[in-house]
């Protein structure tokens, strides 16, 4: 059996429920590992040693009382845009650097109730805006498979934490690919459920119509475990849904793909991504076929407009969502002579450049005279993209495509915003359509100039509410290929791992 901190969530929960090991022992092991290596990885903005140990003791007590908990003793990294009462919740922004949340997000609460142990609040691109975690105003997070490279983003901290065994489950949020891309970069399963499946209450909003919480894990089984715990209607979130009951995703894991049609997207041909990458995806599609899937070609003709559509809708919503950070009630306040000046100085000092850029874009897109040309047209384009998926799903049960166009890149490699935005090219259309999608490890590519092979992710996407099908198929692929297990994270000499 692996060291305690290297165990999957399912392994930990099974052992703790069986009283083979205590939640406290697992927690202490993980915290010791975090203390040893997080200085190099930088996954966490805040570690929660005391809270984690207290929660572990509570869980052990519940186990002693005879309870069985689906996530008993499982170490969890919480993206720092989710509220956990009494902990600093920063969104990796100067404007919330010292803000302590007075309440707990529903998804986080469900994880805690199910026995999860909050190890720490993990780094992200400021307000979840970015694809590399480099937009964090509060810390640098590195890819555990090559510390000179980014972990992806915006859920970079949780991805790095789970990749480096500093947690078994990372709680992330995905607005345009923020779980799936870092999942691909860090050799993880990154799963974004259907929009509305998991309550957003307590998730600090970036773009409300797109934001969705989901897990980052080292196995599909763990993703299903975490998902089953978090999913479901929440009276505190009017957009959360309770669709017809279906079997828990953890029970829907399958061994093959027989009887399933998998659509390969004509417009997402991978030749242009380079021979190595192209070969990885071609092999992935062949592996799906070898598992019994029927491969069909589908077309998403408007998906190419996804990026442009997304960069109107998401900034429009963010420009409004981030208004509340005004220095009046909480967070940073820069004093000034009058209230308007106070707003201006607080927001100028508190927000980083990417956040400001998106607030400006969004404010412009909603302005009178531009609203119809930008926001309304973007909403129409969004409908067209969703319709493309509906048509495609008439011909297939799942869609397979890349999660990202390249493996993790080095720091400062994407200095212009547009090339960074392009990292979400394959993930944004699913977000706009509200569909469940995940990335699952599908091979290794050594980037040009890179010293070591880096993981690649295959993106699988299912129709709305077909999470069990999606996770079941991803599990079959993962078990047949076992790409993730081929390499381990590398830590520098001297790091206590």
């Amino acid at each position: 059996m692996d060291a305690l901190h290297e165990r999957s969530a399912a392994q930990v929960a099974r052992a703790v429920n069986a009283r083979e090991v205590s939640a406290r022992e697992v927690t202490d092991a993980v915290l010791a590992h975090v203390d040893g290596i997080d200085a190099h990885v930088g996954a966490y903005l805040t570690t929660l040693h005391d809270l984690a140990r207290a929660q572990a003791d509570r869980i052990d007590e519940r186990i002693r009382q005879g309870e069985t908990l689906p996530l008993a003793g499982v170490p969890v990294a919480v993206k720092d845009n989710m509220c956990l009462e009494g902990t600093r919740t920063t969104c990796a922004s100067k404007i919330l650097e010292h803000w302590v949340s007075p309440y707990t997000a529903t998804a986080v609460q469900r994880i805690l109730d199910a026995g999860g142990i909050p190890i720490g609040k993990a780094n992200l691109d400021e307000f979840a805006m970015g694809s590399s975690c480099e937009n964090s105003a509060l810390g640098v997070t590195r890819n555990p498979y090559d510390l000179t490279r980014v972990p992806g983003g915006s859920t970079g901290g949780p991805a790095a934490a789970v990749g480096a065994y500093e947690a078994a489950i990372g709680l992330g949020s995905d607005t345009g690919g923020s779980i799936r891309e870092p999942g691909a970069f860090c050799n993880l399963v990154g799963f974004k459920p259907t929009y509305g499946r998991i309550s957003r209450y307590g998730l600090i909003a970036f773009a409300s119509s797109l934001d969705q919480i989901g897990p980052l894990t080292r196995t599909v089984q763990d993703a299903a475990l975490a998902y089953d715990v978090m999913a479901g209607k929440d009276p505190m979130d009017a957009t959360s849904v309770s669709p017809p009951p279906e079997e828990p995703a953890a029970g829907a894991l399958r061994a093959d793909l027989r009887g399933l049609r998998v659509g390969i997207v004509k417009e997402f041909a991978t030749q242009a991504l380079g021979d190595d990458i192209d070969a990885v995806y071609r092999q992935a599609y062949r592996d799906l076929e070898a598992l019994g899937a029927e491969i069909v070609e589908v077309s998403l003709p408007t998906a190419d407009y996804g990026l442009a559509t997304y960069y109107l809708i998401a900034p429009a919503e963010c420009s409004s969502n981030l208004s509340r950070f005004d220095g009046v009630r909480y967070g940073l306040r820069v004093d000034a002579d009058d209230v308007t000046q106070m707003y201006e100085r607080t927001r100028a000092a508190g927000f980083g450049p990417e956040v400001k850029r998106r607030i400006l874009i969004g404010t412009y897109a909603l302005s009178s005279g531009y609203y119809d040309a930008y926001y309304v047209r973007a909403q129409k384009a969004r409908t067209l993209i969703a319709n493309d998926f509906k048509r495609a799903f008439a011909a297939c049960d799942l869609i397979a495509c890349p999660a990202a166009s390249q493996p993790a890149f080095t720091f400062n490699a994407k200095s212009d915003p547009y090339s960074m935005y392009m990292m979400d090219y394959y993930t944004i259309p699913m977000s706009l359509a509200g569909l469940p999608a995940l990335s699952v490890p599908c091979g290794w590519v050594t980037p040009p100039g890179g010293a070591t092979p880096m993981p690649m992710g295959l993106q699988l996407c299912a129709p709305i509410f077909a999470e069990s099908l999606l996770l079941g198929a991803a599990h079959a692929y993962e078990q047949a290929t076992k790409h993730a297990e081929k390499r381990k994270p590398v830590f520098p000499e001297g790091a206590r791992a």
Partner: protein
Amino acid sequence: MTAWEAVIGIECHVELRTASKMFCGCQNEFGGEPNTKVCPVCLGMPGALPVPNMRAIDHMIRAGIALGSEIPAFSKFDRKNYFYPDMPKDYQISQYDMPLTQGGVVRYWLEDGTMKECRLTRIHLEEDTGKSTHAGSTDGRIAGSAYSLVDFNRAGVPLMECVSEPDIRSAEEAVAYLEALKRTFVQLGVSDVKMEEGSLRCDANVSIRPIGASEYGTKTEIKNMNSFRSVYRAIESEIERQIAIVESGGRVTQETRGWDEARGVTHPMRSKEQAHDYRYFPDPDLVPMEFNAATMEILRSTLPELPTARFERYTKQFGINVKQATQLVDNAQLADYFDQCVAACGNAHQCVNFVLGDLSRLSNESGTPVYYSNARPEYVAEVIDMLEKKIINSKIAKELIERIWEAAGSPRAIVEREGLSQTSDPGAVEGFVNDVLAANEKVVAEYKAGKTNVMGFLVGQVMKTSRGKADPALAGELLRKKLDAS
């Protein structure tokens, strides 16, 4: 000399009466220690989300149906974006292009009973803001203040905004319109409409034009009116001001003006900021609302009789005068009580007299509302019935009203038990008359000297001697006969 008419439209904000706020579970109640009725949602904490109060939406629809508005099958909430310290999210959840109700008519009446109508543009639902106190500023505004304090107890209280068409033509009509709205909302239980507590706030758009003109003049928007009386005074004053400007060759400037209650004039308000671009867009945190015909029908069929209909029933069917009908309609529970009295005795006029007369007086003296008193409608009806049948006279009737107020009981039983029925037996009354004449020689002399107006006194003495039982008409007749004969 041109004759002018005013053209007035009214926008009012009415806080809905619900147990909890519009988008969270906090208590919706006026006052309290500042910032005690708050939670992450109404404080706009990071990550908090709104969940709509269905009761408030029901209230809105009932109000809309009552006012003849169209209730669209589809409605949604939008965000109105602007920065202000008492607005927790720096956007207000409101409704822009698809409000819950559209159109409608407010039917109201003036003091002389004239019925009027004012069309509604729309009523939409939104959340109230917090309340700012700006310390150290000369005019109570944020500019120039040393510091400001914000109380968020009111933030998130459900608020409906009622926008009228410019159908109102005078200050009197404006107040009568507001009174009609108030009555309707109170009757429906959707709001308590207390201007002094800020649960009704209104602005008036006022312009003038020559009578007969079809085009509108330039309008001004009047704010800061804190009572119906100040609405009346402010509009009167503004109409006069505009007429004076135009008649002296000037032009009215389109602007917002504040009402100065103490000085009795409107004055230009410094514009808050530059022209606002509120950047409305659909609130992605809330799902659009859809309504089906069946729900509408249930809401429609459970509406009570509305004040205007009741007013017309009282004035037209019962022939009650405008003032008394208004008094009753303005107090729905009292009117319900009145209706029960009428149902039991059939004499609306006597019922009005007792309900608004003796019973209201007793209510004022004791502090107990008439409808909660011992004087049940059927007892009042018995009194009226006995009076009509001349079993008792009006003096005894008044006495009985007081008796049934003090302790519940059938007045008919009291009359029987205590022998209070009116004495029309000439023999008995004659006895009382003789006693009175014998005891009041001086007055009798005055009468004989031509001072016939002492007759009232003598009748009163007969009533007193008979303990109120004598038929006063018979007593008068016998007195006159005896005095004139002797």
